[in-house]
């Protein structure tokens, strides 16, 4: 974690505290390592109430007794958990004066993705001249949300302004004991979003849009909590197609979704974390716990993800189908190239009656990467009339990568109808030849065919991201052909 130490020094020189807290503590970063003191430091920095500090501490104490899980098909050098900083003040102002100072390769990628100029500046850390533009857009959004009573703010703000909501729902979907990385997150989380949609409200905009204009904090241990009250709807998108670097190598986020009666949450992720150099060094480890609880009757949660980055991806966005008639969906495109390793999938736990789930997973491996789908569909004894359909397809590009499918299908109720299909193949020579004979160059042909392969998932993304995601798919496979 040498990179961590160097960069944090730079961060340490920077700016005032974004959220305007005043504290007694002078330094802007916690000391190296992770001890109970670190947890207290973080909690104090955020001026948290005692109940939350206790919550963190109990998670931390539990974490000390746990072993790192080793069952996924990923391998990496051991992580020294004591050799990292667990808190650093967020970056504030930009460091560059114009796009000319930005790495041209990075700009080239932004252009290929079709990212507008203003956003390119924000992503690259260039000062945005038309500040009032972005501010006014942000202000308009904030107004609209306030009008309908939607709460959308950073987690620390939510703890301060809506403690009763946070207390009620935090840890109710992913308990602190859930797994090693979720427990770690519970102890040291510091960024993340809180979303609350009141009864009957259909959130007036994709919360993705809001996010993109606003400055994106890439927190190491983000904690996100989304609550959709009775009859409400929200579509939330995190991440972005632009390649993102971060000084922190390990990202262990936790996302909890709660959908009450007749509510629907659509959660989309487009992630392109830095995958590391050609030897796979220095890339980001993305170990995420995401779970949705369809608590209410007729509730629905759908996860859509396009993962093309990270050195190692380890995530299983899941749904607990508790409420009768509830529905869980999982749509995923996971692309791995170079030496990336992906072990991803979903869990659909059917507890209520007449629940259904749909899983469409498209894995594409290229280079020397390894891509595993790991999924669980489980039907409880009392879960009547469950319906599940799962389709996992893997595409191999080149003969030095690998694709694995590990589905677990468990049922204790005879009325459940569970169907699972998986195929693994490569882009056929016939298809390539056909496209090329029509004048489409080889790389473009591969991108075209792969996009066709992923179509069912791309269709699930919010409109503006679908187009970018398609381009991202093409870019992620560059260099994999020939």
């Amino acid at each position, binding site marked *: 974690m040498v990179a961590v130490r160097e960069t944090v020094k730079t961060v340490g020189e920077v700016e005032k505290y974004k959220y305007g807290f005043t504290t007694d503590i002078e330094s802007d970063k916690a000391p190296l390592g992770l001890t109970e003191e670190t947890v207290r430091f973080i909690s104090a920095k955020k001026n948290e109430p005692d109940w939350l500090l206790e919550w963190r501490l109990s998670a931390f104490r539990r974490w000390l007794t746990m072993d790192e899980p080793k069952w996924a098909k990923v391998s990496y050098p051991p992580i020294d958990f004591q050799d990292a900083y667990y808190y650093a003040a967020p970056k504030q102002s930009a460091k560059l004066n114009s796009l000319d100072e930005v790495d041209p390769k990075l700009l080239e990628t932004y252009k290929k993705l079709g990212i507008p100029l203003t956003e390119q500046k924000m992503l690259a850390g260039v000062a945005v001249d038309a500040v009032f533009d972005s501010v006014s857009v942000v202000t308009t959004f904030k107004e609209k949300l306030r009008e309908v009573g939607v709460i959308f703010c950073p987690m620390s703000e939510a703890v301060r302004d809506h403690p009763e909501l946070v207390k009620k729902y935090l840890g109710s979907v992913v308990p602190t004991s859930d797994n090693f990385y979720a427990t770690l997150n519970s102890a040291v989380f510091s960024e993340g979003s809180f979303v609350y949609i009141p009864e009957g409200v259909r959130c007036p905009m994709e919360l993705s849009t809001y996010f993109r204009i606003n400055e994106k904090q890439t927190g190491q241990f983000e904690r996100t909590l989304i609550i959709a009250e009775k009859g409400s709807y929200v579509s939330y998108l995190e991440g972005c197609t632009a390649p993102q670097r971060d000084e922190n190598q390990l990202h262990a986020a936790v996302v909890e979704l709660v959908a009450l009666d007749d509510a629907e949450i659509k959660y989309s992720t487009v992630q392109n974390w830095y995958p590391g150099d050609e030897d796979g060094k220095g890339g980001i480890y993305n170990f995420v716990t995401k779970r949705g609880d369809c608590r209410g009757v007729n509730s629905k949660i759908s996860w859509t993800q396009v993962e093309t980055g990270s050195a190692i991806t380890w995530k299983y966005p899941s749904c607990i189908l508790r409420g009768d008639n509830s529905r869980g969906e999982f749509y995923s495109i996971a692309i791995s190239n170079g030496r990336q390793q992906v072990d991803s999938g979903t869990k659909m736990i059917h507890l209520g009656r007449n629940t259904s789930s749909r899983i469409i997973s498209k894995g594409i491996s290229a280079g020397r990467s390894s891509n595993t789908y790991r999924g669980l569909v489980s039907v409880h004894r009392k879960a009547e009339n469950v319906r599940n359909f799962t389709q996992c397809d893997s595409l191999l590009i080149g003969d030095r990568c690998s694709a694995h499918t590990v589905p677990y299908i468990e049922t204790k109720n005879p009325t459940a109808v569970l169907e699972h299909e998986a195929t693994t193949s490569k882009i*056929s020579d016939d*298809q390539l*030849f*056909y*496209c090329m004979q*029509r004048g489409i160059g080889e790389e*473009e042909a591969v991108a*075209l065919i792969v996009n*066709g392969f992923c179509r069912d998932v791309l269709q699930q993304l919010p409109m503006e991201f679908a187009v970018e995601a398609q381009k991202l798919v093409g870019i992620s496979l560059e260099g994999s052909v020939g």
Partner: protein
Amino acid sequence: MLEIENLHVKVDGKEILKGIDLHIRAGEFHAIMGPNGSGKSTLSYALAGREGYEITEGAVRFRGQDLTAMNVDERAAAGLFLAFQYPIEIPGVTTMTFLKTALNAQRKARGEDELDAVRFLKLVREKAKPLNVSDDMLRRALNVGFSGGEKKRAEVLQMALLEPALAVLDETDSGLDIDALKTVAAGVNALRSPERAMLVITHYQRLLDYIVPDMVHVLSGGRIVKTGGKDLAHELEKTGYAAYGADAA
């Protein structure tokens, strides 16, 4: 337009074409007929540049350029079109998307400007109408679930859109009933022009009643054993291929 000289082609280590000579000028319509195994498809794949078809001897010049020096998509941009006997399915890619990508890729390669969505849609609809290619077919994934006739009509639509200088039609009539055959033939005939040449490869004479050739060549045992006018096709119908030493090496 197309000059093939002493072409020898090997597939899987076996020599299939054993010295083909063929000259096709712009505006001409040639037909190649021959029994199964004579090398008809090998010729069309070799012209298109398919991997696995090794040219061991001979030369091919297309519009003055050495065709063998170009890769598959370069040959297409240079004006070569191969209508497949078994058009390939590409799941998830709509016919419309495929057509646009192909046309614009070729235009780009030739230094022409690409068509925007509106102009393209207009153009496609224009070309699709006489071929009975519906909007629905255009929205479906390319060739997925298409009947034999639909696949062939889609091939002809591509040809109409891409406007090649040389179109090679590989057994375009296989699997078609008489009505589908007429529609396809009408579409192909509509594309005849003094600037364009066509090479129709077929087993049966039937197609040639509708797409009347200027010259007919008989391919047998990897060589062209006879060349004649359109009447040669009728003769073949009567005598069969054996008369032309079909089993001779």
